[in-house]
């Protein structure tokens, strides 16, 4: 690794007690379990990795086709295919532990109890540094979005997970709601240590030739730069509504995008779909942030968070 020069700006952030060397995290579902990108990306350069959403039992996921490109975006209905929490701990986590990077487990349950069980199992394992509670997946029948769009249910999931773990708990919010600040405040009051947003916007694509949906699941979640304006707006709104840290995402491709989210109030950012079109995206964003701060003589990244002048 490169030695830090004296004039290097400070990129380190602390999200509810979790210290990361920089605020750039790869987003759940877009970076596998880390190992998939290990030969492309120097994982040690990242602030954190959020692994693919984990459930108690392995999940098959939805039948294909699962993805479709749209203008500036990607629709997906993967349906939380994952190895399950036990296999994650046995087969995937040991690999991640070899790196100097925060590991955040994204968790999903079909019931309050399942959320709690998954949280409990992950908390016992060394090497998981925080939990991100997915109450916002649009691609599963049970749980997911139905919890996330309802402030009471979202709060209850948060309480149960908090009771089951000592790890910092991030709650990941859906944008498919009338007022995201209501949900954000509800989970904050229920004990969330941070909120991350946004998950995907529910969308659809149609194959005119067959008059069928392009996705077997009919609808899917829209991600990528197409949704960035919506994501930025919500991050800005939520950052003004809650006291806990906000982790922003949605269409971030470049360091400039990431910094815009931070100016809007995000203390850290996640990079999702960008990994697909440029596996080096997250690393390049870290590097770009460093250059930006240097160039603007900003000593610490914290100085720009929430500095939007309206």
């Amino acid at each position, binding site marked *: 690794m490169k030695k830090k020069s004296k004039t290097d700006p400070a990129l380190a952030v602390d999200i509810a007690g979790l210290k990361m060397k920089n605020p750039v995290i790869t987003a759940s579902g877009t970076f596998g379990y880390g190992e998939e990108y290990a030969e492309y990306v120097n994982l040690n350069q990242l602030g954190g990795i959020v692994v693919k959403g984990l459930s108690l039992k392995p999940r098959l996921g939805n039948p294909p086709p*699962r993805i479709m*490109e749209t203008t500036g975006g*990607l629709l997906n209905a993967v349906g939380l295919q994952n190895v399950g929490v036990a296999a994650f701990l046995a087969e995937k986590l040991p690999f991640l532990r070899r790196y100097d990077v925060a590991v955040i487990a994204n968790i999903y349950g079909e019931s309050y109890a399942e959320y709690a069980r998954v949280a409990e199992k992950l908390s016992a394992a060394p090497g998981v540094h925080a939990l991100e509670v997915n109450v916002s997946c649009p691609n599963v029948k049970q749980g997911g979005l139905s919890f996330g769009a309802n402030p009471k249910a979202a709060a209850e999931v948060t309480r149960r997970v908090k009771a089951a773990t000592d790890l910092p708990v991030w709650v990941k919010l859906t944008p498919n709601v009338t007022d995201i600040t209501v949900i954000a405040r509800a989970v904050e009051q229920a004990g969330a240590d941070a909120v991350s947003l946004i998950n995907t916007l529910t969308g659809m694509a149609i194959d005119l030739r067959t008059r069928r949906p392009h996705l077997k699941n009919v609808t899917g979640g829209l991600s990528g730069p197409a949704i960035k304006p919506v994501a930025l707006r919500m991050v800005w709104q939520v950052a003004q509504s809650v006291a806990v840290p906000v982790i922003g995402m949605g269409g971030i491709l470049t360091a400039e995008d990431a910094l815009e989210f931070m100016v809007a109030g995000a203390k850290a950012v996640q990079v999702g779909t960008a990994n697909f079109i440029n*596996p080096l995206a997250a690393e390049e964003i870290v590097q770009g942030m460093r250059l930006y701060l240097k160039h603007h003589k900003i000593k610490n990244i914290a100085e720009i968070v929430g500095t939007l002048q309206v």
Partner: protein
Amino acid sequence: MTEKAMARNIYLGEVSRNEEVRPDFFLMKIRLPAQFERPLPGQFVMVRVAGLQDPFLSRPLSIYACKQGPRFCTIELLYRVAGKGTRILAGLIPGSQVELSGPLGTGYRVDRTKKNIVLIAGGIGIAPLSLLVRELRRRSCRAADAMTVYLGARTETALVGLDALRQSCSRIIVCTDDGTLGEKAPVTKAFQRDLPKYNPADTALYACGPKPMIRSLAGLLNDQYFCQVSLEERMACGVGACAGCVVAVKDASGNKAYRRVCADGPVFELKDILWE
């Protein structure tokens, strides 16, 4: 070369040739740094025009040929203009830059114990199989007549790669849907007729083509043969991270599972595939 070229498996390549070899079929040569790994037949690259964000995703294309030199590696892609992404690729002129990662995925596994090698290609499925034929001749020292290729297409003008193939293989059975060249029959029909000649014990089959072709092949072979097929699905990441490109298979215990075409494939054992 830029920094991008330094990272493993991710390169900035330069288009050195891009020609329409048949109506709507193009052959693109891309110059890459020498460290581009020697590809296995069946492997592919994800490619996009450097700096362009429309289309949004990279496109998967099989490696059709690869020549490694001391300073550069040149790969060839043989592709059909299917939609927006390939249409844009087709418009690139020599000197254009492409972002490319690869080689990706699994390759065909060559079973040296089998004496009959049979390849079945439908349409642009010829791309990965051509590389396989050349590698078989070169590496396994197979004779040009130790292999049989069944090659099918809609019509004569869609029969790409045939001339090149003739240089490495002398037994080529050509079929077209409209009879403009070779037999007027689906390629699987021609193969079915010859099937009794091929003993399961000493025949290795390799196929690539549209799904209906692969499916009817599965019906013909009935799990009796060693047969590897290369599949195509829409892809986002190309490296196994998004689980977007899955295909249903029977897992080791015979249960249904989804495997990623990009990372667990694109080459699969035909008998593992679940036809739903």
